[in-house]
């Protein structure tokens, strides 16, 4: 298909503002009479609040003080359920849980005041690990500490063990990971009788915040307004937590009658907001003598922290991705999200899948070793093909060629030659540098799972103005990933205009329809399709009105819009998501068409390990993926490169150190993310098989790179060192310990 704008690296829509420093982020905004707000947090992991003490040396009458008693509606941050309080009233369930809010115009005094509040807590026994939670050492949530569990069954796993040549078992763990967007979280709120509640802030999902505030204030829809300011990165970290900060700023604004700004500093952001769920995955795999998978028995547990938040959904995606892009007749996946007394873990790019994909891809290398074949040979013998069925019972209807992707990745990375060369060099063992090369093959589903998109029922509006500009109205947010630019490209393509003629309306719940949250690799594929459809309908209206004819120019389009608007008042189109009739999902059995489409990928990592210091460097990285039609090659490659970099951090550097449920290394100094000197050249390649239901054939890609990076690196390290890597992050300290015990 010949395209004009799609497939072109159109420059970022808001690029000029970003490179000149004129883009306005929440902390760049200031309102007359504005106060600053801070949060006083629980010093304990779990306990009963006995008293709140305010020290004498602070002029408290000058400060606005808010506690749970000041909440006009329901004391909760409404998400899937309403178990998380906005401010702890009687009990605290994790360290750093918000208890008291303070506001004042002088930030220095405010900080002194924050330190002068002492929350007296009668401690209760707490739970800090998956094991203790599962053992019900204490019941800290519900009846059994379980937020959610899933059971997926395909075929009959129990019948397969007896006929297996080999059964390989293994347990794998992944750590928490901080999203570490460079713009810390923040909100400004204004509350008045006349206007209701308005918040401006750094966020991914304006309508999540909107819902939470409606319930907190007991106000109807039209009395709450949420506006997204320029957002300096999200990666999932600004999916659910912004509702909390918006709630706090709004309560202070209500009590003070003044605008209130809350900006977290880095330490508060790291210690109090969500992180990637720590996980444990156990595999038991039956395999034939020649490496055919007979049965996969998978047990997956995530640590959800103290409240449910999004854990059921994270668990769901992790569960569905746990058996990978393989055809296996017998699969059983048992999974659960458990409560611990840590701050709730939450959304982070990949959303459960990076955890299970790490376990599976590391495990399959071990299975191959047990069988005595190369890891690629094991994959080759089990890759899923068109017409075969995934673990959740979804028949793959897309064209898929995992073997082709793998061979291309191997060719581009020089995999076969390097594997041979490194093996020889490592065994000769001159010097301390050992080299390794490893890979991971995986898939990632785009959009909400199962019937999720049907429930969301997303909406997009489009309006053509008399001057010929076309405005896109959606709740989907730009946070760096390129929403503004690709929406403009999709609309421009459908309308046969240039991107400059397309405007993106700032997400503001007072004006834009709810196009669903900006998460789950759904914005390009699902919302982008709605944008495309809205454009097609707009065009049809102009054609039907007789103002526009085939072969029109941009000038003709503008004149047609002008004529239409002067005759009819406005030219708008409105589109609502319609779920394809041939996608079926059974929420009870947890089976069916989990996703409309998958991205498919093979990533190859080359590492060097200094066996004396256990320092690992990623020397080369090749990422090959099939993602449907690429809308903007520069933006798409940027998504993959950035995701791989986060995956390298997840694999090697990013270690959250916990002490009784609290992150104790909440600084960029001691929580280490990759810098420009730590990363290899990341080479990105796309295969494009247009997806019929995506805009111009596009599928989702945002989360994909987080899935395969860490296991590719872990497999390369195992190859280089002979150490059976079972958990990430693989810091120098942990690797040194593993190497020493392997040689002991």
């Amino acid at each position, binding site marked *: 298909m010949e395209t004009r704008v799609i497939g072109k*690296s159109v*420059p*970022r829509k*808001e*690029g*000029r*503002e*970003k*490179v*000149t*420093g*004129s*883009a*306005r*982020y929440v*902390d*760049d905004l200031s309102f007359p009479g504005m106060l600053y707000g801070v949060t006083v947090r629980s010093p304990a992991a779990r306990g009963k609040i006995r008293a709140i003490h305010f020290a004498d040396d602070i002029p408290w009458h000058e400060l606005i003080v808010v506690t749970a008693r000041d909440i006009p509606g329901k004391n909760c941050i409404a998400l899937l359920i309403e178990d998380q309080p906005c401010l702890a009233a009687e009990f605290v369930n994790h360290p750093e849980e918000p208890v008291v809010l303070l506001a004042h115009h002088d930030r*220095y005094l405010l900080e002194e005041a924050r330190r002068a509040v002492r929350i007296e807590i009668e401690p209760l026994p707490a739970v800090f690990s998956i094991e203790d939670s599962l053992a019900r050492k204490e019941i800290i949530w519900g009846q059994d500490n379980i937020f959610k569990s899933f059971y997926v069954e395909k075929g009959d796993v129990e019948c397969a063990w007896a006929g297996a040549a080999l059964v390989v078992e293994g347990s794998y763990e992944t750590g928490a990971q901080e*999203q*570490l*967007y*460079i*713009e*810390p979280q923040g909100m400004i709120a204004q509350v008045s009788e006349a206007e209701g509640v308005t918040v401006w802030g750094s966020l991914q999902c304006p309508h999540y915040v909107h819902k939470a505030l409606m319930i907190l204030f007991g106000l109807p829809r039209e009395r709450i307004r949420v506006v997204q300011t*320029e*957002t*300096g*990165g*999200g*990666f999932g970290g600004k999916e659910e937590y912004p509702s909390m900060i918006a709630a706090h700023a709004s309560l202070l604004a209500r009590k003070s009658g003044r605008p209130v700004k809350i900006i977290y*500093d*880095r330490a508060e952001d790291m210690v109090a907001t969500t992180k990637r769920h720590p996980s444990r995955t156990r595999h038991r795999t039956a395999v034939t003598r020649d490496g055919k998978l007979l049965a996969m028995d998978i047990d997956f547990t995530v640590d959800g922290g103290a409240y449910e938040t999004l854990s059921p959904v994270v668990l769901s995606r992790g569960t569905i991705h746990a058996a990978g892009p393989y055809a296996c007749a017998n699969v059983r996946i048992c999974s659960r999200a458990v409560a611990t007394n840590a701050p709730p873990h939450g959304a982070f790019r990949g959303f459960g899948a990076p955890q299970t994909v790490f376990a599976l891809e590391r495990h399959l290398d071990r299975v191959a070793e047990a069988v005595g074949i190369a890891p690629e040979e094991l994959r080759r013998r089990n890759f899923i093909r068109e017409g075969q069925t995934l673990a959740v019972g979804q028949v793959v209807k897309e064209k898929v060629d995992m073997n082709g992707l793998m061979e291309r990745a191997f060719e581009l990375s020089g995999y076969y030659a390097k594997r041979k060369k490194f093996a020889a060099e490592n065994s000769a063992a001159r010097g301390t540098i050992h080299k390794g090369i490893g890979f991971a093959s995986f898939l990632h589903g785009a959009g909400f799972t199962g019937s999720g998109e049907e429930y969301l029922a997303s909406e997009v509006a489009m309006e053509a103005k008399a001057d010929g500009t076309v405005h896109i109205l959606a709740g989907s947010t730009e*946070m*760096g*990933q*390129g929403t503004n630019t690709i929406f403009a490209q999709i609309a421009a393509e459908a309308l046969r205009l240039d991107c400059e003629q397309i405007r993106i309306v700032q997400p503001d719940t007072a004006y834009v329809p709810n196009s669903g949250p900006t998460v789950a690799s759904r914005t390009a594929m699902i919302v982008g399709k709605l944008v495309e459809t809205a454009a097609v309908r707009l065009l049809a209206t102009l054609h039907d009105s007789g103002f526009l004819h085939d072969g029109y120019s941009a000038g003709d389009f503008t004149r047609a819009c002008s004529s239409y608007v002067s005759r009819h008042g406005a030219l708008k189109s409105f589109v609502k998501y319609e779920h394809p009739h041939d996608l079926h999902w059974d929420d009870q059995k947890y089976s069916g068409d989990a996703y409309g489409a998958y991205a498919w990928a093979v990533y190859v990592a080359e590492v060097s390990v200094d066996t004396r210091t256990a320092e690992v460097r990623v020397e080369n990285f090749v990422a090959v993926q099939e993602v449907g039609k690429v809308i903007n090659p*520069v*933006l798409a*490659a*940027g998504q993959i*490169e*950035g*995701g*791989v*970099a*986060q995956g390298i951090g997840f694999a090697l550097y990013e270690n959250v150190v916990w002490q009784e449920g609290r992150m104790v290394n909440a*600084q*960029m*100094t001691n929580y280490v*993310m*990759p*810098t*420009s*000197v730590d*990363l290899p*050249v*990341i080479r990105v390649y796309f295969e494009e098989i247009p997806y019929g239901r995506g805009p111009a054939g596009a599928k989702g890609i945002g989360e994909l790179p987080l899935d395969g990076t860490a296991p590719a690196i872990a497999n390369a390290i195992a190859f280089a060192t002979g150490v059976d890597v079972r958990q990430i992050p693989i810091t120098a300290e942990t690797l040194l310990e593993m190497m020493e015990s392997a040689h002991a």
Partner: protein
Amino acid sequence: MPEGARKIRVSCIVNGAAVTCEAYPMARLLDVLREELKLTGTKEGCGEGECGACAIEMDGALVNSCLVPALQAEGAKIRTIEGVACGGALHAVQQAFVAYGGAQCGICTPGMIMAAVNLLARYPQPNDAQIRAGLSGNLCRCTGYMKIFESVVAAVRDAETRA
């Protein structure tokens, strides 16, 4: 501010213009720029000199403005992101960041561009290692740095083509 702290007058040149403002001696230059001078292009990412989002040029050197006390700015020649473009014309580095995907969420971008501009002043033809080292004090969570390196290389190349 601690009791007894008195504001002082600080005079310096910011983006070519002489300015004088009142600030506590130990106030962060970052806050003086953002709040007193309303130059909000300089960003705060960590407040402890790790991320480089607040990078500016001070007497030609790249510094993290979150670590510079206001009193140290007395008499200094300061350039912030607002002083990089010339009138309406973007600097070659800014143009390249837009064209080659060097900016995603944009929050590290002002500091990153300051670091790149400073690098090119020191090394007009930087090699790969010099680019990596020159930008290593500026963290970016979006790009994985690849498109930033490409942007810097392109800025050098495009500036040459124009010359």
